[in-house]
């Protein structure tokens, strides 16, 4: 428990001291989504039809921005080595770090999604599934992305490789996340895709911290 508090508090403190880094993903999300509005005809009714895809892709791209820093900074200043020799379970540390990453970059996106969806003309009935889907889907991004960030941590060209490796792995998240919004848009029950998202989240929460820890150990051998 004390390890949880220590790692979590450290992440938050670091974020509080480098505010620009954590303000960028939500800002990026807002800009990407509004760019679609600029790109389309003014008040184009088609925009609402594409809103689920636009919002979900925007959320994914915004989450990618901060992923590279997740382990890179810790590796550069030696924190990661300290974690490795500290005796705390490394998979647990990975879990806490990914959780903190979600709190700092995923949660703001979940909160921003509703007003942006209203700007794109998404009907009110679809707002619930959108926010709920993002609340289930953005942690998946933090954990899957955290695993890939751990794989590429020591690499000189890791930054370019990271999105290429992350994006295929999160295809199911985007299919079911946007699917839930589309279902609600058409007046259907959004339950099934949301349950799928919850299942994916359970799988990523339970399996990926171990694999990410193995990847980090590999980077130090």
């Amino acid at each position, binding site marked *: 428990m004390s390890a949880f508090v220590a790692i979590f508090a450290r992440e938050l403190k670091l974020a509080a001291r480098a505010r620009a880094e954590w303000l960028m993903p939500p800002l990026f999300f807002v800009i990407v989504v509004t760019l679609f509005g600029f790109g389309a005809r003014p008040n184009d009714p088609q925009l609402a039809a594409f809103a689920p895809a636009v919002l979900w892709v925007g959320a994914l791209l915004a989450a990618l921005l901060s992923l590279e820093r997740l382990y890179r900074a810790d590796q550069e200043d030696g924190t990661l080595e300290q974690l490795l020799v500290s005796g705390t379970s490394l998979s647990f540390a990975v879990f806490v770090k990914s959780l903190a990453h979600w709190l700092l970059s995923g949660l703001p996106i979940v909160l921003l999604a509703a007003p942006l969806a209203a700007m794109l003309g998404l009907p009110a009935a679809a707002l619930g599934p959108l926010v709920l889907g993002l609340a289930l889907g953005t942690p998946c991004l933090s954990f899957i992305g955290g695993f890939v960030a751990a794989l590429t941590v*020591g690499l000189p060209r890791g930054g370019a490789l990271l999105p290429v490796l992350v994006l295929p792995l999160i295809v199911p998240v985007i299919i079911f996340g946007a699917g839930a919004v589309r279902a609600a848009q058409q007046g259907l029950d959004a339950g099934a895709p949301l349950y799928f998202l919850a299942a994916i989240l359970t799988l990523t929460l339970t399996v990926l911290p171990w694999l990410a820890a193995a*990847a980090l150990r590999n980077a130090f051998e």
Partner: protein
Amino acid sequence: MNWTWFHRLGSPPSFYRFAERLAPWLGVAALLLLAYAWYGGLVLAPADYQQKDAFRVIYVHVPAAAVSLSLYVLMAVAGAVALIWRMKLAECVMIASAPVGASFTALALLTGMLWGKPMWGAYWVWDARLTSELVLLFLYLGVIGLHAAFEDARAAARACALLAIVGLVNVPIVHFSVEWWNSLHQGSTILKFGKPAISADMARPLYAGLLGTYLLCAYAILRRTQNELLLRERGTRWVREQLAAAAGNRDGGAHVS
């Protein structure tokens, strides 16, 4: 029964010699089977009552698609073996199967697109089977890209193994996608239990094509593994002896020292 030969296969020099003996047979068998499959499929088999001659894409498409999934499983299993037992040979097999698998995935996608145009009226539809096969291609390319980014071969292999194992989730999705979702892609016709849904004179070249393609993959992976072993063990004595022997053979044994 004496199993020491099996253990010995795990050491790079014995595996190299084993592959050297086995690969030519696999290559010749694959060539003969594929020649029969293509002649049988493109010339001998009757045209389909509904799809006419366009159905003949099946003789390339189905073997390529089957191999694309099998090789991913092989890659992930070899990766797991490499992670658990730290076997150098398993790492080489894993890395060797990635480009072969990626090529057949691309071939399956391309032939599928060419088949889709006359049958469905579109080269591409966004349904589960096609999309998940495309993701499979991205996963293969991700493994190849990740491997290329590392300098240390062993760290690279272990990182790729982890990535391959995570991507394994996609394999059952590709395989069962036509049953789980409503898909434009037709269901399986040859691997059904009981009576297959394809007539025997169409099926025979197809089975030969499947077997031939698997043998071709085995040939390609053995050869690539040999190359990988030579590259990784380039400082060792057995590689120098191997290369000296090969050079000696080429020069008609003029200066074997």
